[in-house]
């Protein structure tokens, strides 16, 4: 820390220069050092290494054998589980993301109103987010039990049709999405922050002009929060593509392959050694398929965002 002690006052220049000009470099790298090492070891290295492993046959015991794009060829043409996994993942994303955004935004708009007790609603809506995933998912596993679960009990009392939920191949994925939607508070809280950042003058001006609530929402609120909407689309889609906990705990991919999403398939190929040899190279190839899908989603969303997001060029 001796370098840091060097008095900057010795150089009576402007404020900005007194702070800078090299004297901080050593101290800066002491402070940022752990993060730099972490970035190299836990981000850059695994990124390169996983691409290499995707091109090898590797069981985790003997050395990896280079096989070129053989893993990818096997995935796309031979593996009977791969396309169902892609289908299940796409289904989950297409069902979950729009619902999560719509319900999250509706809840945020609701919680942005002024009425007594609104804070309690906000707190309750966010509550499931803070609870451990394992705890809430297992709770839902019991709620969705067809015979003694709460869900069917309530539906029966209301004379509504009941379901086999997780046990039915057609309802298993919607059931998983229901469980995921219970955590919609995480989407809500970010929309709520965005709504509260909208300048109130805009609403006042609209009120003076006699605009109704719908035109206020679609002409003021939506354009103003569209950058956050873009961010949410990217974050939610990226997260949904990597869903693991819910299918793992609720169904373990079943019934059939109906909920065997890509992350679960990667886990099963790479780690779950139920008497099988782990195929780490093969699982890495799947990781890269997932990774490329994620990059493509982000790139496409960002590319087409100018069509529907509003940006104020006068701001920095």
């Amino acid at each position, binding site marked *: *820390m001796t370098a840091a*002690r060097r*008095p*900057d*006052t010795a150089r009576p220049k402007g*404020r900005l220069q007194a702070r800078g000009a090299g004297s*901080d470099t050593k*101290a*800066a790298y002491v*402070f*940022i050092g*752990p*993060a*730099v*090492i*972490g*970035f190299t*070891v*836990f*981000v850059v*290295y*695994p990124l390169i*290494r*996983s691409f290499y492993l995707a091109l090898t046959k590797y069981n*985790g015991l003997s050395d990896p054998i280079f096989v070129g794009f053989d893993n990818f060829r096997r995935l796309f043409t031979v593996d009977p589980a791969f396309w169902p996994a892609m289908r299940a993942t796409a289904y989950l994303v297409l069902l979950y993301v729009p619902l999560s955004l719509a319900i999250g935004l509706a809840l945020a708009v609701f919680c942005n109103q*002024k*009425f007594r*007790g609104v804070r*309690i*609603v906000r*707190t*309750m*809506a966010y*509550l499931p987010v*803070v*609870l*451990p*995933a*394992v*705890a809430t998912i*297992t*709770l839902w596993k*019991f*709620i969705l039990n067809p*015979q*003694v679960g709460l869900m069917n*009990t309530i539906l029966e009392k209301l004379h509504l049709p009941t379901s086999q939920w997780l046990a039915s191949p057609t309802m298993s994925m919607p059931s998983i999405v229901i469980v995921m939607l*219970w955590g919609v508070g995480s989407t809500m*809280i*970010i929309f*709520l922050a*965005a709504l509260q*950042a909208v300048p109130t003058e805009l609403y006042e001006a609209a009120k003076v002009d006699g605009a109704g609530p719908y035109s206020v929402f679609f002409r003021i609120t939506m354009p103003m929060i569209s950058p956050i909407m873009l961010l949410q689309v990217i974050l939610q889609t990226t997260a949904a593509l990597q869903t693991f906990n819910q299918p793992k705990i609720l169904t373990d991919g079943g019934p059939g392959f109906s909920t065997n999403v890509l*992350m679960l398939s*990667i*886990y099963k190929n790479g780690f779950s050694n139920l008497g099988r040899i782990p195929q*780490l190279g093969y699982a890495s190839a799947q990781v890269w398929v997932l*990774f490329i899908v994620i990059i493509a989603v*982000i790139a496409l969303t960002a590319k087409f965002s100018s069509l529907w997001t509003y940006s104020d060029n006068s*701001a920095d």
Partner: protein
Amino acid sequence: MTTLLTEERGSAEVAARAVGTKDRTKSLRTASWYATALFVCAVMVVPLLWMITIGLKSRSAVFEVPPRLFPNEFHFENFIKGPEAIRFPRLLLNSSIITALSVFGGVLTAMMAGYALARLRFPGRKIWFYLFVGSMLLPGVVGLIPLFQMYKSIGWYDTWLPLIVPAFFGGNPLFIFLARQYFLAIPYSIDEAAKIDGAGHFRIFTQVMLPLTKPAWITMSILAFQASWNDYLNPLVYLYSSEKWPLAVGMASFISPFAGQTPDWSYYMATNLLYMLPPLILFFAAQRYFIQGLGSLGSTTQK
């Protein structure tokens, strides 16, 4: 709960002042607001109440058809016997050690990096900032297999090190970003004054900056606590021996049926409640920071 109720007196006063026909539509609207509010709260809370109900039922009452929404007799001993069945104290200790260390490491090193990025001038400052921010978008799954292999080759498989050590190297890039945002908002005259008084960066960081950035590192600590306490995939992948498991893995294994045995749901739900309790207490104690911290996240990403 008092903090929840302090707001929104104004709307009631406005409503009270309303007159004539407007009065009726207004009260109708208010009623529909409260119906919606009640529905939202019910959807969020009823599953948790159901959990408590099952936790209090006897083993056979859990499988009654049709199920009772309220137990007809209370079995408080489930809260003792359930935890015993999975050696809860041991798992609790494991979870606590893992969580405490990774919160400390993750928050400290992220704050340090944020301090350097926001307040020190050095070559490469911008590049590192963009690299850290960029790595937020990188899916965690990419690192899963190479890191597993790396830990295995250095003998860290089946130890807590893979769950703790990465936290001491910057932890979460989101935290670095949050820390930087907070540090940027502090006037530069403060550390200039400290420098004139002869304080080095280490003293400025610990004695000037940390007290000023309390909301930032409290928010981060809460988020880091949850991330570690709630993490399931990493301990599942890295820990083989059941005596080293944290609660997440222990709880999940509790209900995986062994040899066709049905899991004991009443024991499970009682234990589940105990597992949820620390994050639950933390949430209610630190609500203010939660909303504040996440709110600033929403508004900073907008810029």
